[in-house]
């Protein structure tokens, strides 16, 4: 059985082992080549979005779609911001954070309970029920959810989006997290128990840190889903000040056509802050994904 040692050192330090490894290997042609190709493939649409955001609707079709516009215009950005973009952004942020944090926390607690209490029939039953929820299509249950929200008198609030979002994030999170917690060697739990720790304490002080990679994965996955979620905000809110960003895109879809440059501007504005966030927090993210329980 592997002994517990310190996990990987922080990414800022380059260990002698790694350097030696790199020097000993020849250049990774397959990986490198593919990655550059992929970069081109990945970035082309992004490039298109950015340059289109500076074009006007009239010259959009007339000029080559891949060339930057001859006359840059900020008109689209102006339109987007005038259309209450900042408020939509904050609404989206509130909904996402407000849903993710509880969702991940309670999913973690449930996953822990299920793994630790593997004998209990009650917990097994709960697990089954969570599994059933894996493939519930949102479009199917939207009307009953809508009715529930109305009964709770929460229609047209951000909470209306948050509450069901949490519920829908639970099954998958529990699945992934419980798989991961199962990996934690039982001996660790034994030793905590012998030190007199309660289950609650064990959960937070042992399992939580060790499960970090899965927690980060699940958080990102769900956060993206909620941030870009369209159906729930559409059905459960209606006033303009409760709208979220995906709904903002629809502002530029008129009755007879789509204002593509404006949409491009809206998408660019939405993505920019998150890209910055990611650029800054990437190291933390990666260290979170890398943390393990032994090396």
């Amino acid at each position, binding site marked *: *059985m592997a002994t517990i040692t310190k996990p990987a050192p922080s990414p800022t330090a380059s*260990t002698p*082992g*790694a350097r030696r*490894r*790199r020097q000993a290997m020849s250049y990774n042609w397959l*990986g490198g080549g*593919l*990655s550059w190709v*992929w970069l081109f493939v*990945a970035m082309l*649409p992004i490039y*298109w*979005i950015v340059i289109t955001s500076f074009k006007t609707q009239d010259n959009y*079709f007339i000029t*080559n*779609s891949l*060339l930057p516009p001859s006359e840059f215009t900020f008109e689209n950005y102006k339109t987007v911001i005038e259309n209450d973009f900042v408020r939509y952004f904050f609404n989206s942020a509130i909904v996402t954070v407000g849903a993710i944090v509880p969702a991940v926390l*309670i999913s973690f*607690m*449930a996953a*822990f309970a*299920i793994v630790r209490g593997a004998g209990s029939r009650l*917990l097994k039953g709960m697990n089954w029920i969570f*599994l*059933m*929820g*894996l*493939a*519930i*299509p949102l*479009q*199917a*249950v939207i*009307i009953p*959810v809508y*009715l*529930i929200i109305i009964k709770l008198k929460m229609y047209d609030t951000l909470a209306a989006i948050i509450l069901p979002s949490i*519920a829908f994030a*639970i099954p998958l999170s529990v*699945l992934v997290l419980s*798989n991961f917690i199962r990996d934690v060697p039982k001996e660790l739990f034994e030793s905590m128990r012998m030190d007199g720790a309660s289950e609650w304490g064990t*959960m937070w002080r042992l399992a939580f840190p060790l499960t970090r990679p899965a927690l980060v*994965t699940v958080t990102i*996955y769900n956060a*993206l889903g909620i*941030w870009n979620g369209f159906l729930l905000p559409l059905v459960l809110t209606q006033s303009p000040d409760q709208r979220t960003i995906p709904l903002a*895109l629809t502002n530029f879809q008129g009755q007879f056509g*789509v204002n*593509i440059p404006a949409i491009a501007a809206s998408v660019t504005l*939405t*993505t920019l802050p998150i*890209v910055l966030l*990611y*650029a800054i927090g990437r190291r933390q993210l*990666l260290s*979170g*994904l*890398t943390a393990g329980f*032994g090396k």
Partner: protein
Amino acid sequence: MALPAFVWFVAFGIIPLLGVLALSFTTWNGIGTIQPSGLTSWRATLSDPGLPHALWVTFLIMILSWAVQTPLSILFGVFLAARKRYRGFLAVLYFIPLLLSSAAIAITYKSLLDPNFGLGTGLGIEWLNQDWLGNSTLAFATLIFIVSWQFIPFHSLIYQGAVRQIPTSMYEASQIDGAGRMRQFWSITLPQLKYTIITSSTLMVVGSLTFFDLIYVLTGGGPGDATRALALAMYQQGFQANLMGPASAIAVILVLVGLGLSLLLRRLGGRADDSQLEGA
């Protein structure tokens, strides 16, 4: 301890699901009165040739997108895990497709793939001016491509983290034994990634079952019904053809398929008594 999650899920997940189950035994057009009608909707759904087709489309999407995304994500993850300066910059750029909403992505690609004003005309490459969204096979392939474009960044991130976790001692030991890069990849990297592959695959497979937004905006299920996956068939029956009964039946079928899949996945992921780090 599992109570909060359970209660929440029952409230907003199970109860609506039971509602949908009940709806599948009714006839309702979405706005009028709900009329209980026994097995009528079920019979209509099960005898509709569109249903097996939708099931097939869904599975095809699931399998193909897994087959494309997993190898590529592993490759990129391994590549990005080695620490070089510009790789950090690349990682940020790679991540961007993930941040876009499916609707935005669909709109972008629809414009890029326009046979008269899109990529082909822009780059001057006539071959790119195919009937991408109008030909059944091409539309399907395009869909898989776009899904991969959107989600490979995410999965490669997961793999990147997992690869970093592999002890370098393992690689060093194998090098002493004379193993080349390929050998190391197959004998060390892949086995160590086993649980990550399962996690990533779980997310992929389950996600593709309820896949809706992208397909809806990109092809609407078309051309014809070439890309009409289960979730789309359900939406069209319910909200476009106003047949909520059969739509609910399809929804129940979707849930059952999901349940079956998740059991399968649990079986794969459940063997966790052996530590992955043997031999470290």
